[in-house]
């Protein structure tokens, strides 16, 4: 069988891959893409850009998302979820008092669930409905299924919250190129727009989360120096401050959820009006149907929310300290998130940094625009003029040691991807198992950190105490997601465990949930699997062919022939309709091309670092 290789120098024009960036927000979500080199946010059929992050479950299993669902938040509060992002990767004990949260919570290990009249649902499922809706919008606008997406997460999200977000994307049928930190996404949109250089602070106050990131921008490199934040502080809390004030003023303490929701809406509207006006009226409908009219000035609002504003400054200080910088080093401050429209926030930021913040880009859209730019880059649609993002992990990762203490293995603000290993030993004679508890957080006591996973390494050969050498390795990937492995070194006995944080759903769980959603249509499920395997296989064929076109010289004739055969076999499998055969053949090609990929990487690195093209390379 002959392998076709394009003529030297005649590089086939790269096929443009469809890609999108998604800002999965607490209050609103957006999707954006790159068109003619410009990032643009995508509108729905009625020309609206923001999709309210609201999901409503009906008894007949129908699910409503966005504006339609939002209309029901007061009428059907138990089945209509707002701000679900607050519950991602969170257990019932993690939640503050459920102030104004009218849901029927179910206490589940790892992550809380909600009882609805369509059955119980997890925050991951609720989020996946929002993502599905955005995916449909993207498919309409792009004219096809995106090859991959970038989904943004708060920089201060821990491992459990990131894993939950990625699981939601999988459940929505999205291929995730990358989880990208929201402030970093904003910096991309901003930096590329303004051709900025120097050290910038991104202050991102969203609906439910607060992030501060300090980035150094130099010729095409965005290096995050430090990040900090509060994953449970956002614009919602300002609404609640007004809500509390309303209750205090009227003496009306609503007990039913409908009144709570409508009071919260009134509070939100007042807050938003105060960004434009020095004072505003607020109407509160009491349970007897009578209406009380109140007036709230911006001054009083500022006094009500002073504590919240201050709460954002502490993480800012910490991030600056971790970056080893002072206020004078900051060239500009970028404001991100709808909540930064509040004059009290702008003033506090200006006071702290001793300079007016930059507000050139719409704070609601800037994260989605940055995500779209990054998705386009990750799809491989740009030629040459790439930029590079070097992001960090927000919270230290540790392991429980004797006495319930956390020994840090990876420090916060380490540039990712990062791997660290540490050796531990047995403390009893003949000990054959070791229990490993993975935690995240800065505190010394394990009980004050977040527990991510527990697992046991078994099969250690009996030795005297202190003789075994158990090497525990933490690897954090470019999404900020952790995997842990452990192995006993001396005995030669290979005892190794790979774990996923306990909050994450296993691949089998996700497969089952996807199957459930297709429960009544076996053909749909088969069709979907075929579609997925084909898309994956086509990607592999394309990548292999373009690699061969560029670097086939790195292979000897035998290797070339073998790779060619595997490639042909996969093309034939793709032409058929057996998804299992496609998967099998793709795995074979992946295996066959591993060595080739290694040599290409070596070659690329050598040419990059020596600054010269190597004419010949020994194979």
């Amino acid at each position, binding site marked *: 069988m002959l392998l076709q290789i394009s003529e030297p120098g005649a590089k086939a024009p790269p096929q443009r891959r469809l890609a999108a960036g998604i800002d999965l927000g607490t209050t609103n979500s957006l999707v954006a893409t790159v068109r003619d080199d410009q990032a643009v946010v995508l509108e729905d059929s009625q020309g609206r850009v923001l999709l309210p992050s609201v999901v409503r479950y009906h008894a007949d299993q129908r699910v409503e998302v966005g504006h339609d669902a939002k209309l029901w938040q007061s009428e059907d509060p138990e089945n209509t979820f707002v701000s679900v992002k607050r519950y991602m990767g969170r257990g019932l004990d993690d939640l503050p008092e459920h102030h104004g949260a009218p849901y029927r919570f179910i206490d589940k290990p790892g992550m809380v669930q909600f009882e609805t009249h369509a059955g119980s649902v997890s925050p991951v499922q609720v989020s996946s409905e929002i993502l599905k809706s955005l995916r449909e919008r993207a498919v309409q606008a792009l004219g096809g299924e995106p090859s991959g997406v970038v989904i943004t997460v708060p920089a201060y999200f821990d491992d459990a919250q990131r894993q939950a977000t990625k699981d939601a994307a999988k459940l929505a049928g999205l291929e995730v190129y990358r989880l990208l930190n929201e402030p970093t996404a904003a910096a991309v949109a901003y930096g590329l727009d303004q051709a900025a250089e120097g050290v910038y602070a991104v202050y991102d106050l969203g609906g439910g989360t607060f992030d501060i990131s300090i980035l150094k921008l130099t010729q095409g490199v965005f290096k995050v120096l430090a990040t900090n934040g509060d994953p449970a502080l956002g614009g919602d809390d300002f609404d609640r401050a007004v809500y509390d004030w309303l209750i205090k003023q009227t003496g009306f303490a609503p007990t039913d959820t409908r009144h709570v929701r409508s009071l919260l809406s009134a509070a939100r509207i007042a807050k938003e009006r105060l960004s434009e006006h020095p004072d505003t009226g607020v109407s509160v409908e009491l349970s007897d149907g009578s209406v009380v009219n109140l007036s709230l000035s911006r001054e009083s609002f500022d006094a009500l929310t002073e504590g919240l504003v201050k709460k954002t400054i502490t993480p800012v200080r910490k991030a600056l*300290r971790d970056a080893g910088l002072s206020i004078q080093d900051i060239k500009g401050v970028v404001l991100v998130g709808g909540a930064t429209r509040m004059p009290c926030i702008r003033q506090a930021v200006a006071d702290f940094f001793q300079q007016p913040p930059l507000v050139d880009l719409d704070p609601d859209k800037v994260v989605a625009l940055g995500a779209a730019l990054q998705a386009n880059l990750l799809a491989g649609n740009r030629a040459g003029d*790439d930029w*590079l993002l070097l992001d960090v992990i927000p919270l230290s990762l540790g392991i429980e040691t004797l006495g319930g203490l956390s020994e840090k293995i990876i420090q916060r603000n380490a540039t990712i991807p990062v791997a660290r290993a540490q050796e531990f030993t047995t403390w009893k004679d003949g000990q054959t198992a070791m229990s490993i508890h993975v935690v995240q957080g800065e505190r010394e006591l394990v009980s004050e950190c977040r527990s991510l996973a527990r697992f046991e390494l078994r099969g250690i050969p009996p030795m005297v105490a202190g003789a075994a050498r158990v090497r525990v390795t933490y*690897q954090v990937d470019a999404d900020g997601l952790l995997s842990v492995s452990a192995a006993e070194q001396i005995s030669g006995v290979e005892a190794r465990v790979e774990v996923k944080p306990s909050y994450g759903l296993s691949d089998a769980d996700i497969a089952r949930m996807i199957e459930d959603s297709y429960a009544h249509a076996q053909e749909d499920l088969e069709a979907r699997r075929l579609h997925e395997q084909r898309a994956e296989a086509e990607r592999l064929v394309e990548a292999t062919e373009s690699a061969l076109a560029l670097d086939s010289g790195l292979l000897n004739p035998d290797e070339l022939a073998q790779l060619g055969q595997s490639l042909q076999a996969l093309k034939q499998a793709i032409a058929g309709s057996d998804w299992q055969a496609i998967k099998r053949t793709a795995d074979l090609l992946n295996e066959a*091309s591993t060595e080739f990929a290694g040599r290409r990487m070596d070659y690329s690195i050598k040419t990059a670092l020596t600054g010269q093209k190597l004419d010949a390379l020994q194979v």
Partner: protein
Amino acid sequence: MISLATGNYFELFQLPQLFRLDVDRLDSQYLKLQTRVHPDKAAHLSDGERRQSLQWATLANEAYLTLKRPLDRARYLLKIHGVDTREEDNTAMPTEFLLEQIEWREELQEAITIRNQHSLDRLSVRLKAEMDNLIESVATLLDGGSHHGEAADLVRQLAFIEKLGNDLDRAQAALED
């Protein structure tokens, strides 16, 4: 699978194997390397290529940090020369150095107890000067011939001081919050 025969981190970045290092050049070589190997370059490629990219970028970060920080760089150079600094079990230090350490520890405790930011700041400045001195001596020993044993002694002292510095940083942070 990482297959490039890199030898060591200095060779990886194509830098001379010296303690006195051109930090700007290290930075630029590191960025050049990450520009090629970062997982963002492989996001649309096959599983194998993505895995390889992850491993390479992880190595690049590790190598960069090791060479960037003076203490780690000194340890690493000694390791290349087959010298183990044995910081866990070799605690033999000159008496003079140990007395000075005790004195500084006491000053730190005192400043923490009376919550005196200025004392902490002053201590920090003196600690920094002491570290710079030690680093300079380590540089001379490491780049000036085969005084590896003496260099290892100083590296152990440097590690002591760095630990004190970390405790000092934490105390300053706690006072600010």
